[in-house]
């Protein structure tokens, strides 16, 4: 059998010294020393947990991702409701923080957004859209704690802090 470093199976190379020289240079070249992963890849692939692949870690990640997606999408769905009430104002006309907003009895239908049980992550969340002077916010509850997800118009000055030397 022809060895790959024998060049006899390439026709006419003996009559073409230039091509023969190129072939020899190609045979001598070894790029593998430039690899930055040779050792680490070997160690990773031959590690015991890699050698016996398991779906458990992947399943854990997928379940967590699904739970996170459900949590993020739930307020958006409630945000389309029209039966919201006006946010009460405190001193100097500023809106009261979400934790102290009283719900008008009967005005807002509490709606279960989603119930998921993924370990101890999420148990129940519920919410409603509340208009604010510059937009609206959705109040939602998770594990007995209330949070606000606010949408409002803003300015560049609010986003980017200007500093002067």
């Amino acid at each position, binding site marked *: 059998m*022809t060895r*790959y470093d024998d060049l006899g199976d*390439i026709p006419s*190379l003996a009559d073409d010294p230039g*091509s023969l020289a190129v072939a020899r*240079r190609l*045979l001598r*070249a070894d790029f593998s020393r*430039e*690899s930055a992963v040779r050792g680490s890849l070997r160690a990773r692939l031959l590690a015991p947990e890699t050698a016996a692949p398991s779906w458990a870690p992947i399943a854990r990640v997928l379940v967590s991702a699904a739970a996170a997606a459900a949590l993020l999408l739930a307020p958006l769905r409630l945000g389309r409701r029209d039966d919201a009430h006006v946010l009460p104002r405190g001193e100097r006309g500023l809106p009261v923080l979400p934790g102290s907003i009283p719900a008008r009895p009967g005005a807002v239908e509490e709606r279960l957004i989603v119930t998921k049980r993924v370990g101890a992550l999420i148990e129940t969340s519920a919410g409603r859209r509340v208009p604010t002077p510059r937009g609206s916010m959705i109040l939602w509850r998770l594990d007995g704690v209330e949070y606000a997800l606010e949408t409002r118009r803003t300015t560049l000055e609010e986003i980017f802090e200007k500093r002067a030397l």
Partner: protein
Amino acid sequence: MPDDRAPTPDFGRIYDENFAKVYNYVRYRVGDAAAADDVVARVFEKALARLSGFDPRRGPAAAWLFAIARSAVIDHFRAKAWFSWLPLDAFHGRPDPAPGSEELLSKDEERRALLESMAVLDEREREILALRFGGGMTNREIAAALELSDANVGVIIHRALKKMKGSLGEDQ
């Protein structure tokens, strides 16, 4: 009664015996050192995942690995087509942070010159040269893998070498 079960392949041995060949093949195909590392990592990850399906009695590990490597290179170029707005830095190796000697530097330059000279080749010539000189395959093995005749592979290699010799200063 003879045991028909395939012997368990030693992945560590397959890796050690074939890493350089697979890397050189991939490097000739993709040019860039970082991209070659990515592709080679995918090749061996796939090989490990499919190890239980590999039967050493049906052929050498190298042939099995190169089938995976060729597929990984094709996937790489498909992905690259999607991200074609990214700067192309193929044919430029990872910079050597501290070459130990002039000899090391000249070897680096030699490898770079070889990669650059392959830019004149078409896809098939480049693939065949990469399999032959990077992967260490014989003309017969290449012919079987690419469904060509041995003679055709030899002619294509010679034609590719002739194209390269001008840019490598070997045409005098």
